């Protein structure tokens, strides 16, 4: 039995590993996606005043702290039975939209993009952002950097800090927006819309015009027929900040639609002894192991899942792009994991459009940003769509609002089972007995999980350098026989 | 980089006091092994000359730069040994004492445990002294002038003593004249000499003394600064009579048509709207009571102005604020008499012939409202008079303390009554007779033979509800005679309430003004009840007379003289030492958060808005360390009790 260890991979909470076991025949026997770290937020949240949670829980992830900050703050609204003034809600969504622009940009251009732009077989040294810039031109490269910096500036302006914002309070936000700030944000929003449109064009030119890529996208190696989950507004349009959770089955039929408060009726988490990360599944279907199909409770989240679970986008340009994707890929739902990249760009456009709408909203500079809670706090659930999927914060407090119980289901965790399956499926399809395992081949395996953008695949990935996947191949005696890249 | 620490440690046997329980040899052996300890010795009596000399020689011979003595309490000998190391050229703050007698050998039975504890205490001192630093004992000059607040007997006595020694005194009195309560008295116990005979000369002496700047009808409004260098703001209220022009003829008083109740006569009579409180007032310059002067209410009259030859009347006169600089402050603000209407059972205010002690004093006074005659409301002469002791004193409901003078003045009253109305019956209702002073017991003896009735017992009530024939038309004093343990009813024409002395109603504000503390009974707190009875916790500020607690005239005078002596000593020194172990702020670390500013009981901390830091006035700081413990930035260091030193001590004591 041979063992391929891909280590380190992830950093949901620290690093991650993918173990690929080959049998003596050289076939893939099994793969394991392991998350070897735990920090225990659900325990040490106990005893903390509830209002501290938005700032405490965002330390789960410094890549998407805004997502935790939002989910937590919304949980507090419910916990304290308080409805924030509409300007406050809009400020929250405004910050959140800016955050989406930065995060999706990062992923497409710095992480996912290179695989397509440069091609999976391109030399490691080129398959990164610099390679991308080299190919698509410095101008776009500059636009990428600019989009990230500018939108981080919005986060700083509205949230108080660029990383780990502080403005979320039960019943509103701590800081109002003034007119100069609004103007600046509006301009950034306009630029972001243009940037998003350009990005979709890049995707069209480089990926969709390239048959080899399209074939790869729709190939079985990168396809899973699973349930999909995402937040939708009252018109069943994709929404990142608020709404109900909608689940569709592999046929695309609505399987469930529920308010955050009901999540426990629908989601459960399975524990494996070989990972610190739990594996969520649909309670009403049940845990059937790492399998897809209608009978397995495994579901998927993140961009493609959100689009699959919704009936469309709430902004015009994004809606166009949405329709184009489904018509191109043969209708809903789309099960091709690699289409996640496309979906992400559509969401990028939506986020930018939404940002612009909000920046022009007459209410956005209103000083009316706080409602002081008066009711006795008890229990609250807050759900938002993190870039990497549905994010659930659930708190129970005593009558003074001190946390007695906290339950957190973090975005990437929802995809844990699917990632595991995708890696296995790709590995099985690609690793053939006798066939030499090339770096490009392993990168294709990598491409099976990268679309999920599990939290480790964040802005800190892939600076000039290469694959974040060190791969070592051992023979059945555990002797190292090959290692990628050589050196 | 400080030079290498070389510590010498000396374990005292104190005869057998320590060595009897603690194995001093073992302690010395143990200590010798500690880092930086150059030498550890044990010796019979460290405080003896040979003991001290041993330290001095070792300092030279072994080049010691730190010395620890383990012996008795630092309260006894810290000073002795500091002196010794200083003689040998070491800074006194490079000495530390471990108390292995009071805190160890004397309170521990088991010699083993005592020895262990002694080791711990000494090693704590050794660990601590490693971080101790030399400190400068600082001196500040003393302004040779004094502020005396309150012109009663105590304030007057203090003022005269200091003025007679040739130093400037600012004597501030709230009333229009100095004199205080003593000026109201008729005779003084136990000698029965006439109060005004002995007091009036003092009043005029004050008025005439060139060194005393008298400010009557004035109040201290603000005090700043510190020992040797106080600044005081004094408000001189407008008299509406020009002190320089007024010749004291008092025609104005005569002509004034408007009247008000006389405070000085305790409401027994009236005074004019322009008035001096009493005949011998100093200064003999009237004031216009604007509340009762019709000119001030209606704008007409001006009678006084009309008749004033020197044109001294000045309706437009305004309050004046003067600032004085003084080296020391003596607080002699006196007492209030307890208001007996609080005790409704005694009927004060309900029955016209129930009067207070002070009212009776005035009544007896030849220059008083009744020309010295004891009379009832209806003008007739009382035949029976009851005197009730401890009214408001020794009473959980009012004041628990004994007012100390009531027994004696009550006896005095019996005598005065017998003097003026021979056949009068006098009843003294007392709890205990307290005649502690010189000649007091004898006075009591004497009165017992003058046919005064002493009834031991607390009075329940004074009532006009009569039962028997003889009670008719009289007040009845109902009391329990605790000697015969029967309830008795005593008919009396007049009842005198021997009211308590209590702290001034504004004592709290005054305490804050002068930054002194008060004891539970509300009077000002002396620094030490026995060894430092006139000083306060604020250096350079003293408290004398009844402001510090109830006392009789001799005690008040003695205190006044004592305080004067303390002040004169300061002035003749010309400078005073101030605490060296104080707090200092490191401006490099202070963020100006202002946490500390209000914490200082001596208002030593201010903040510099420019530099955004807080500052400590070294002269005001006494080194309590409250601000040090509060500073969130550890920007304040408490010299000689630094965090480093105490942390080391904690580690050391836990060996």
């Amino acid at each position, binding site marked *: 039995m041979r063992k391929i260890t891909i280590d380190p991979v992830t950093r949901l909470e620290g690093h991650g590993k993918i173990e690929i076991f080959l049998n003596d025949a050289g076939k893939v026997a099994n793969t394991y996606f392991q998350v070897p770290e735990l920090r225990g937020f659900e325990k040490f949240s106990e005893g903390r005043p509830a209002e501290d949670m938005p700032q405490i829980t965002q330390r789960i992830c*410094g890549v998407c702290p805004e997502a935790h900050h939002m989910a937590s703050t919304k949980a507090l609204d419910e916990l304290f039975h308080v409805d924030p003034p509409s300007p406050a809600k809009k400020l929250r969504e405004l910050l959140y939209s800016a955050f989406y622009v930065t995060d999706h940009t990062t992923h497409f251009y710095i992480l996912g993009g290179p695989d397509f732009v440069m091609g999976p077989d391109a030399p490691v040294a080129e398959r990164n952002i610099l390679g991308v810039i080299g190919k698509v031109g410095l101008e776009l490269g500059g636009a990428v950097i600019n989009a990230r910096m500018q939108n981080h500036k919005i986060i700083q302006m509205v949230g108080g800090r660029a990383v780990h914002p502080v403005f979320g309070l039960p019943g509103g936000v701590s800081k109002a927006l003034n007119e100069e700030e609004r103007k600046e944000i509006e301009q950034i929003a306009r630029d972001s819309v243009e940037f998003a449109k350009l990005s979709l064009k890049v995707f069209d030119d480089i990926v969709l015009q390239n048959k080899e890529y399209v074939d790869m996208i729709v190939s079985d190696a990168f396809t899973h027929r699973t349930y999909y989950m995402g937040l939708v507004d009252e018109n069943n349009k994709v929404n990142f900040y608020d709404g109900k959770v909608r689940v569709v089955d592999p046929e695309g039929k609505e399987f469930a639609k529920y308010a955050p408060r009901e999540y426990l009726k629908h989601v459960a*988490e399975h524990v494996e002894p070989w990972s610190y990360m739990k594996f969520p599944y649909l*309670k009403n279907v049940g845990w059937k192991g790492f399998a897809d199909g209608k009978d397995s409770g495994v579901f998927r989240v993140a961009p493609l899942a959100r689009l699959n679970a919704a009936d469309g986008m709430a902004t015009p340009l994004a809606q166009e792009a949405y329709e184009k994707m489904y018509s191109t890929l043969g209708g809903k739902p789309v099960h091709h994991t690699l289409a996640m990249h496309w979906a992400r760009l559509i969401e990028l456009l939506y986020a930018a459009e939404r940002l612009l709408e909000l920046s022009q909203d007459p209410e956005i500079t209103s000083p009316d940003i706080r409602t002081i809670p008066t009711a006795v706090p008890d229990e609250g659930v807050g759900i938002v769509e993190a870039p990497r999927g549905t994010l659930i914060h659930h708190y129970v407090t005593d009558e003074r609002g001190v946390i007695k119980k906290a339950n957190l289901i973090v975005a990437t965790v929802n995809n844990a089972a699917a990632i595991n399956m995708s890696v296995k499926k790709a590995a099985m399809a690609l690793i053939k007995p006798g066939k030499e395992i090339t770096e490009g081949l392993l990168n294709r395996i990598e491409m099976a999980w990268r679309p999920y953008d599990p939290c480790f695949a964040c802005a800190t990935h892939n600076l000039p350098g290469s694959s974040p996947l*060190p791969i070592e191949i051992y023979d059945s005696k555990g002797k190292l026989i090959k290692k990628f890249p050589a050196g | 980089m400080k030079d290498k620490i070389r510590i010498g440690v000396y374990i005292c046997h104190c005869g057998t006091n320590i060595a009897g329980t603690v194995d001093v040899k073992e302690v010395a052996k143990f200590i010798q092994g500690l880092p930086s300890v150059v030498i550890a010795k044990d010796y019979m009596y460290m405080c003896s000359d040979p003991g001290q000399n041993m330290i001095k020689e070792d300092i030279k011979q072994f080049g010691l730069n730190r010395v620890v003595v383990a012996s008795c309490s630092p309260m006894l000998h810290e000073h002795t040994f500091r002196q010794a190391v200083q003689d040998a050229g070491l800074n006194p703050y490079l000495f530390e004492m471990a108390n292995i007698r009071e805190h160890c050998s004397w309170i521990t039975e088991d010699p083993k445990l005592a020895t262990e504890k002694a080791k711990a205490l000494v090693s704590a001192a050794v660990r601590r002294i490693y971080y101790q630093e030399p400190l400068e004992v600082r001196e500040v000059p003393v302004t040779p002038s004094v502020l005396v607040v309150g012109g009663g007997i105590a304030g007057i006595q203090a003022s005269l003593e200091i003025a007679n020694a040739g130093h400037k005194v600012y004597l501030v009195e709230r009333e229009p004249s100095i004199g205080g309560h003593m000026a109201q008295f008729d005779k003084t116990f136990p000698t029965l000499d006439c109060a005004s005979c002995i007091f009036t000369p003092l009043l005029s002496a004050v008025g005439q003394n060139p060194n005393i700047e008298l400010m009557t009808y004035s109040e201290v409004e603000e005090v700043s600064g510190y020992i040797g260098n106080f600044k005081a703001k004094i408000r001189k209220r407008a008299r509406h009579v020009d002190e320089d022009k007024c010749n004291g003829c008092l025609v104005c008083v005569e002509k004034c048509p408007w009247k008000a109740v006389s405070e000085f006569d305790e409401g027994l009579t009236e005074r004019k709207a322009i008035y001096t409180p009493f005949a011998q007032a100093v200064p003999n310059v009237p004031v216009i009571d604007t509340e009762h002067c019709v000119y001030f209410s209606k704008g007409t009259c001006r009678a006084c102005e009309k008749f004033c030859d020197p044109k001294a009347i000045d309706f437009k006169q305004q309050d004046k604020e003067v600032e004085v600089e003084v080296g020391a402050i003596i607080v002699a603000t006196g007492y209030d008499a307890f208001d007996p209407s609080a005790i409704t059972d005694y009927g004060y205010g309900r029955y016209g012939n129930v009067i207070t002690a002070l009212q009776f004093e005035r009544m007896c006074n030849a220059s008083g409202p009744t020309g010295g005659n004891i009379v009832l409301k209806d003008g007739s002469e009382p035949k029976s008079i009851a005197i009730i002791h401890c009214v408001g004193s020794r009473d959980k409901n009012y004041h628990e303390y004994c007012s100390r003078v009531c027994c004696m003045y009550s006896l005095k009253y019996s005598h005065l009554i017998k003097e003026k109305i021979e056949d009068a019956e006098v009843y003294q209702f007392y709890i205990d007779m307290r005649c502690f002073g010189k000649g007091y017991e004898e006075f009591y003896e004497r009165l017992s033979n003058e046919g005064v009735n002493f009834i031991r017992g607390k009075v329940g009530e004074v009532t006009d509800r009569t039962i028997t024939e003889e009670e008719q038309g009289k007040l009845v004093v109902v009391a329990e005679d605790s000697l015969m343990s029967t309830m008795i009813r005593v008919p009396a024409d007049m009842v005198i309430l021997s009211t308590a002395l209590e702290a001034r109603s504004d004592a709290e504000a005054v305490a804050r003004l002068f930054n002194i503390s008060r004891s539970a009974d509300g009077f000002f707190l002396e620094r030490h009840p026995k060894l430092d009875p006139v000083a306060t916790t604020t250096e350079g500020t003293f408290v004398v007379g009844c402001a510090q607690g109830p006392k009789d005239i001799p005690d008040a005078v003695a205190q006044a003289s004592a305080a004067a002596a303390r002040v004169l000593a300061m002035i003749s020194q010309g400078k005073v030492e101030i605490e060296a172990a104080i707090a200092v702020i490191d401006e490099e670390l202070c963020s100006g958060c202002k*946490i500390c500013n209000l914490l200082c009981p001596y208002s030593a901390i201010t903040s510099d808005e420019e530099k955004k830091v807080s500052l400590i006035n070294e002269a005001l700081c006494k080194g309590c360390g*409250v601000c040090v413990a509060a500073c*969130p930035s*550890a920007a304040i260091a408490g010299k000689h009790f630094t965090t480093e030193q105490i942390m080391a001590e904690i580690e050391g004591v836990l060996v």
Partner: protein
Amino acid sequence: MAKLKVAFYWAASCGGCEIAQLQIGDKLLKLAEAADIVFWPVAIDVKYKDVEAMPDKSIDACLFNGAIRNSEQEHIAKMLREKSNVMIAYGACAYEGGIPGLANLFNRQMIFDRAYIETESTDNKDKTFPQTSYQVPEGELHLPEFYNTVKTLRQTIDVDYIIPGCPPEEKTTWLALEALIEGKLPPKGTVISHSAKAVCDDCDLKRDVKKITKIYRPFEIIPEPEICLLEQGLLCQGIATRGGCGAPCTQANMPCTGCYGPVEGVIDQGTHFLSALASVIDSNDPEEIQRIVDDVLDPVGTFYRYSLPDSLLRGASIK
């Protein structure tokens, strides 16, 4: 001159420190000019083995973020110490344990029970817990050992410098990197920040003397603009927290939570805030004092939000 060799590593952390490192933006290129990044698992493909193979002290400087929560992190911290000339604790978690350090209020079993059994959504009837080594049909899988307590980097290895913050502000990061690049590092042990003073020195809010009569929670009041938040009864810890951050939180009307750690020379951040706060409670009546104190709902979580493992008592005493 030869390029510097720099290593980056994260342990128990959230990734915010990496984002913060990216926040220096174009200055990254200056860094890239001056230094080769020889290890950055999150960014480049160098495996632990490769680092192990490096000669001792061959790395000029290692920026280490995250606390020590498990055996793998401790192992790598020790390895990197051997390989690096200069070891820099980057961010609150490496410096003082950070927010994950609040786990020291509990022990491993309590944390596992909550995470893998009690959590409302968890379905784990046969009480499965993650194992450090587990036999699957195809072979053996390993997980690092989850320790009973969170430790700071200084409690694990010798640390030369500290860059405070959760995460460090851009300017703080650059202050350190610039010093590194220019070879102008301060004396060993220095906490690198623009200020040795408390945040109040950075904060523009007006402050007067402090008197606390009631403690408020941030959602209970809308603070008066321009006025010190602590004076308004909010538990703003700026007074006890190192400055240099520029006080962004108070500018957003939110109290400082202390992420830059204690002020220069302070041993224990929590007790210093505690003492200062308690000292200005405006009452001498024990009962009223108790009433006011009782409004501090979570002293440990508030005063040691980022520093429990680094406090004098490194956590709760759990028998």
